[in-house]
């Protein structure tokens, strides 16, 4: 099965005075996995709900496989959806939940297909259980199976992992990617968790106030953010004062290439913690303030004069960086965005 292309053209939607969607354009390639990422209230869920037909846009167009779906009700759009809240029908078993959509289509071999789907999501042994007998992660797996069973043209995932605990979340996230690759359905995934978006998607769209700030591969989003908002929202950034010299910016004594031209000579550069190197040095002007252990990588906060700088270091170096240690700070010359 191959996916179909999805296109959102100039979608607008206002709730009172809030522009949930402000002339949003988004196009998804057939079979592509796109994640919409953004803070709460940025319109990402509204975009997904408009695509699903659960919300009407004030203006704009929804095209799926070249067909105009804008006026079609949700039940005729042929889209599978997994919701943030647990959405399994409480009175039906896992198997009956999965075959619900199939039975509406009057297909034969419903049960066989439903069982196949439960197998795909790895919980065929719980086919006869009711939702309240399943854990949150298992329920979302059944919901995924139910959405995929109808062979939808588009799979919509509305923060399906946000109610789960951390370990299950990572597991299911990877599982979703595996299954999506296997079935090849065009997928739109909405999340506010940047790690989640970067880990699973082919392309990530960062949204802000109803608009798409950048739509690019996870690596591009992370390494060459198009706007300060993207740079700040995706990954943690240090905000360091700098002086512009030609098409470079001098920050803490190091010249860094600029991602976009600066408008004024004194600027604030957004420097990622992994670009900051910290070396113990008795003549250095920095002092280690705090350290936090995070597994193989740890975080060190250094004060340089009035400025706080966060750096990432390999945990085995933590011993030489006790709080109070004088350190020297150097920056890797990777391109930076300006705030």
């Amino acid at each position, binding site marked *: 099965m191959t996916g179909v292309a999805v296109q959102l053209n100039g979608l607008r939607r206002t709730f009172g005075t809030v522009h949930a969607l402000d002339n949003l354009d988004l196009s998804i390639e057939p079979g592509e996995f796109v994640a919409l990422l953004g803070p709460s209230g940025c319109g990402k869920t509204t975009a997904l709900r408009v695509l*699903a*037909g*659960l919300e009407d846009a004030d203006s704009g167009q929804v095209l799926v496989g070249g067909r105009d779906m804008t006026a079609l*009700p*949700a*039940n*005729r*759009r*042929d*889209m*599978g*959806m997994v*919701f943030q*809240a*647990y*959405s*399994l*029908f*409480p*009175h039906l078993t896992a198997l009956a939940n999965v075959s*619900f*959509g199939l039975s*509406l*289509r009057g297909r034969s071999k419903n049960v066989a297909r439903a069982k196949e789907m439960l197998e795909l999501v790895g919980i065929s042994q719980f086919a006869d259980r009711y*939702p*309240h*007998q399943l854990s949150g992660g298992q329920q979302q797996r059944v*919901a995924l199976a*139910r*959405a995929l069973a*109808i062979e939808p043209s588009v799979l*919509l995932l509305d923060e399906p992992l946000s109610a789960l605990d951390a370990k299950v979340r990572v597991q299911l996230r990877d599982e979703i990617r595996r299954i999506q690759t296997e079935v090849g359905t065009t997928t739109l995934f909405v999340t506010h968790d940047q790690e989640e978006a970067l880990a699973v998607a082919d392309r990530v769209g960062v949204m802000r106030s109803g608009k798409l700030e950048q739509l690019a591969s996870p690596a591009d989003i992370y390494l060459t953010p198009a706007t300060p908002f993207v740079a700040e929202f995706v990954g943690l950034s240090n905000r360091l004062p700098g002086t512009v010299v030609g098409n470079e910016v001098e920050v803490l004594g190091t010249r860094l290439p600029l991602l976009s031209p600066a408008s004024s000579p004194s600027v604030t550069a957004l420097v990622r913690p992994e670009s900051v190197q910290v070396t113990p040095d008795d003549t250095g002007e920095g002092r280690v303030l705090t350290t936090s252990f995070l597994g193989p990588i740890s975080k060190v906060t250094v004060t340089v004069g009035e400025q706080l700088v966060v750096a990432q270091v390999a945990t085995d170096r933590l011993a030489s960086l006790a709080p109070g240690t004088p350190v020297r700070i150097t920056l890797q010359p990777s391109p930076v965005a300006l705030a």
Partner: protein
Amino acid sequence: MAGVIARRARKQRIFRWTVLIVLGVFFVLPFVAMIEFSTRDPGTWPLLVNWPELSERYPALAEGITNSLLQAALTAVLMLVLLVPTAVWVRLRLPKLRRLVEFICLLPLTIPAIVLVVGLAPVYAWVTYFLGGSSLTLVFAYTVLVLPYAYRAIDTGLSAIDVKTLAEAARSLGAGWGTVMWRVVLPNIRSAVLSAAFLTVALVLGEFTIASLLNRTNLQVAINFLGKSSATMSVAVSLTALLLAFVLLLLLSLLGERRRKSLKESA
């Protein structure tokens, strides 16, 4: 110290039992009296279960019973057909109207039946004109009368499930609104619907004021009428109606118990 506590506990126990016995006597005594009175004539109870003979000897009573049963069934159906989709729709699409709808549904509770009848009389002049004077036309008035109880029951049932998400999930799977109602919402509020129906039946079977003042016949009107000619029979029928309502309410609380238990399991 221990003695004081023991004495206080004994005092409380005595007080509790006294209250219980006094209340028990207060409630049970009328029943005992009714049973005693209705069994004075040994023919009364056997006649009550012999429908052909009953309808021959007390045609008005038989008519009252049939009318009341039909009214109860029709009111329950009409109430469900009107209320369930409305309550679901308000939850899904017009959540701001919830308070207003609740207020309107509770209104009949605050208006005395006699006032209601004064208002209903001119309306029923038209109802009689269009639909005739059948006692079944009371179903419209009764549907309004049971709204407070039925609405509460159904609203509680809907609160227990996430109607919005369930409906959206079903819609995205290809279900039309009819299917959403019939196959997703209703099965999940089944006990709430049953509660609403039982309350409706109990209420309609006990209704007297409106039927009497609008010159219609139902069970209570017939019992009242019968009381003037055959006291034992009227008391026996009253007792049966009471027992029926009692059984219905018992079923209702059993249903509630089961729902609480299944909720506990799922928690």
